[in-house]
């Protein structure tokens, strides 16, 4: 038997007191690596499985301390700020250790399942009082399925409720590795039309739709459907109507639906990684529009809330 605690994975954050990622007070583990490239992605640092340097220009004093520190000379001063040539940068992270102004941070840590579990377990007293637990998010947690299964399994052994936030884009045998340790799935449905889904996320949605049906009906796992509402991309009345019909008919009217309105958090993150974001233009939806979309779900007999 493998030692679960020793299994390693890449994460970029462990966030405590998460109140919108499942029931009760939760600790959410953000895992790196994702097969999708959603245009609106709010966590672009999750895409790659590798370490990345996060640079906050506003904080850089231009002192130049990082220039000699960089082993390959990838940093130079430009307009009073220490700029990294991203083509040369190998994300070794030495510059982050010498920066006195917190302008340089390393995104991504290699950790063992045991270490992650210890962080989750720290807040056990809060789960007990609030009915909360741990949520794996990302990125796509199924991208590191063995690591995800190990963390979740350790939680289950300790009596901690588990949730998995997923795009659902994974082979069934991968899902089967993880599902036994999952109490609740927060399952994204981003678009009903396969070609539109392909355009918005880089992958088609057939596998995703099949998976959610199998998870809910065959495996009898509780599911909450989460729909990011991205004006101009997936918020048309037709698509929302189709989504509602899918949830009501293919799953069941008792499956709760959360509408997650678009926000702009991802934008500044791209800037900081020196990554050109994908061509994308949207604005947060109006309250009126959200209400209208909510009504569509209600008319299908579904329970829907705005926000997670």
């Amino acid at each position: 038997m493998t030692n679960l605690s020793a299994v390693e994975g890449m994460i970029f954050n462990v966030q405590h007191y998460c109140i919108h990622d499942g029931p009760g007070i939760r600790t959410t583990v953000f895992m790196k690596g994702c097969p999708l490239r959603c245009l609106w992605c709010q966590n672009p640092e999750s895409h790659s499985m590798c370490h990345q340097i996060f640079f906050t220009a506003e904080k850089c004093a231009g002192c130049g301390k990082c220039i000699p520190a960089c082993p390959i000379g990838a940093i130079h001063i430009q307009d009073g700020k220490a700029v990294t040539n991203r083509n040369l940068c190998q994300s070794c992270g030495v510059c982050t250790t010498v920066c006195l102004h917190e302008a340089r941070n390393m995104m991504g840590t290699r950790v063992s399942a045991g270490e992650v579990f210890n962080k989750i377990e720290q807040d056990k007293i809060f789960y007990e009082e609030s009915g909360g637990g741990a949520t794996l998010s990302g990125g796509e947690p199924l991208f590191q399925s063995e690591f995800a299964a190990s963390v979740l399994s350790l939680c289950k052994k300790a009596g901690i409720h588990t949730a998995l936030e997923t795009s659902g884009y994974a082979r069934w045998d991968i899902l089967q590795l993880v599902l036994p340790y999952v109490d609740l799935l927060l399952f994204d449905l981003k678009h009903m039309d396969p070609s539109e889904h392909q355009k918005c996320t880089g992958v088609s949605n057939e596998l995703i739709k099949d998976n959610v049906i199998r998870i809910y009906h065959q495996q009898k796992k509780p599911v909450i459907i989460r729909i990011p509402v991205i004006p101009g991309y997936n918020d048309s009345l037709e698509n929302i109507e189709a989504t509602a019909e899918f949830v009501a008919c293919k799953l069941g009217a008792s499956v709760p639906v959360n509408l997650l309105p678009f926000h702009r958090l991802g934008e500044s993150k791209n800037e900081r990684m020196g990554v050109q974001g994908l061509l994308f233009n949207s604005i947060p939806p109006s309250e009126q529009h959200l209400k209208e979309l909510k009504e569509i779900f209600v008319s299908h007999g579904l329970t829907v809330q705005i926000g997670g």
Partner: protein
Amino acid sequence: MNERVKKLKQRLYVHKYPLCIEKFRLITKSLEKTEGDPEILRRAKTLANVLDNITVFIEDDELIVGNVASKPMGLEIDHDYGTWSQEEIDALKEEGYTISPEDEEELKTLNHYYKGKSLVSRMGEILFDNERLWPFVQSGMVLPPWKSKGEGSGGGYAQGGMGLGPGLYLMGIDFAKILNDGLYKIIEEAEEELQRVKYIDADSVKKTYFLKSVLITHKAIIRFADRFADLAAEMEQRETNAVRKQELERIAETCRRVPAKPARTFYEAMQSFWFIFLMITPSPTAAAGRFDQYMYPFYKKDIAEGRATDEDVLELLECLRIKDMQLNRVSGKLNRQKNSGMAKWHNWTIGGVTTEGEDATNELSYLILEAAKDCPTPHHTITVRVHEKTSDDFMLKALEVVKAGVGMPAFIGDKSYINFFVNNGVDLRDARDYIVTGCLDANLPGKSRTASIAMFIVPLVLEITFHNGVEPRSGRQIGLKTGALEDFQTFDDLLEAFKSQLAYFMELNAERDNIELIANQELLPDPVRSSFMVDAIKEGKALLDRTMPFENGAVMNPVGMINVADSLAAIKKLVFEEKTVTMKQLQEALSANWSGEEFEEIRKMCLEAPKYGNDDDYADLIAGDLYKFWAETTATFATALGGKHLPTAISITAHGPGGEMTGATPDGRYAGEVLADGTMSPMRGMDSGGPTAIIKSAVKIDQDPYQATLLNMKFHPSALESREDLLKLSSLIKTYFKFSGKHIQFNIVDRATLLDAQAHPEKHRDLVVRVAGYSAYFIQLGRAVQEEIIGRAEHDLQGVAN
């Protein structure tokens, strides 16, 4: 808010606050006339002179009457803690206060009478010549620093309130008894007791003076109420509006009855309460106690007999909030820094358990919260007692008020508060009846009072330890010689030295406290508040002349303890474990206030060392050990009132001026920078694990021995949007209290703060915002995201602003 309350509230916004000298004049005239009388009798006559002669008025629309000063929105000069110099008056005039030229002139003459007679000069008389104590009080280690013999404690006060003072006591009187019995009952008891006194010892003579002073003051209070009855009757005659005519008639009847006789209705009880509250003010810390408990029988009876509706009760509760807003307060410059703005802590305690241990929450508890939400004035404040059985409904109601952004209520845990009393020998039933006085300190209504509350700046002691007992900025040896820095071979050596210094200065402070207590006892006895304490008439003593059933006369309050804990953690790690920095280098870096490249690097290492507030035992256990040491050491010092000193831990705003006096500290803090706020809160920006990690750190500190502790948290409105969000916050609070946390309060960050954070990110390192369930430090977000959040906050707050 109905139309009446709106109109009353509107009148609170004045262009300038009038400074009034009428009360001061009446007091001074009376004191001049009564020279030679026993002090307590003089003070009683003084009060009678004020109550019989001060200008009284009833404002339009008022239902609860009783003006707090001789002019609307006025502040009466209060000389208890020192007189007002011309310089101080000039400063006030620049800050939005006004005084007529004649009054300003007369004030100077009146001041003459007090030369050498104030509390401060009495204390200075002892302190000034003392080789140990004078440098100590000058150091500012206990705020504020003394400058010269006659000038300590920051000068005078001006406040609303008709009573005697002095104001800075933490205490709760037995309101239930007064409302239910009326003052005649106390007068009767005092008269009978007076006849029973046998003159066999010194106490019996003192008792006579005390009882006579109670008779003088209580009869004067009844005459004061009568003046309002007369005024209302007279106004009623002239009134043409039929509705107002009826209201005035009711006011006249009510003031004729209470507080002399028992209140029969909720309305009478409210009016009686207000007259009595006027007698326990001027005081920034006057407490209403368990208002929802002793007022409930009146409420219930009125509702049952159809005399009042919830709407009527709500209106009266809101009128009371307005009344409390009229009780303004301003202090001299030095104290203004210590307690900024018109700070006051008129605390209403609600919820909690009954003396039998059952849930005490009732309909009135909800209405008190509703009044704060509907009439969102900063005062009076509300503290919600929380226990295991506090219902979700009540928590939700309280959190809705928090969400409205008025900064209240605060939440406190019955478990740890009750443990504090029981562990100090109080009967469990009495302990369950505790109330909050001042900011958060617990007291037993009628059974205990705290009269000396030292704000002790702990990081100054660390600095002095680093300099072998020398105060670095003055070069004076004011502490012990505990060894030069290079002599410390281990971390424990250093810790031991620090603790010796700390214990030494705490003992000096205990002495200072006793001098303060006795000066208060001798110069400023208050027969009114004394008579509202348990068995007051039988005991026949003023409240500082007796040892109370629970004796907590003096408390000691550590400010900046968390900075010291973080500093020691950094030293332990860097100097003694990793040995990457020497003590000498560290001290040089501190002396240079971290400037210079080498020192900046040391600062970075210090900042990266473990910090309290992250659920990391390394720093948390040091904090726990320091608080334990503080609590145990405090309790070794006797007070002059027959008890021992007790620990409390609330910084209020003392971390501001305390920080100003303190040089750079090894936690990475710059010289002059504000210290950690609260006492259980991490240093700003030093926590990165969010609310649960802070709470996990805070419960590693044994809070039970403390009379109070304070934990502040900031949230963006988006963390309190839905009912589920509020329930989750409620379970966070309950978890903290289950593990013996004492207090938590939430700041809901408004738009102005966010804008300020954009402009001055260095001041808002700890500001966490949530975007769709995702948290981030606000100042780390890009401009566009910040704008979006600012827009959202504005939107969220609009919903409750009206």
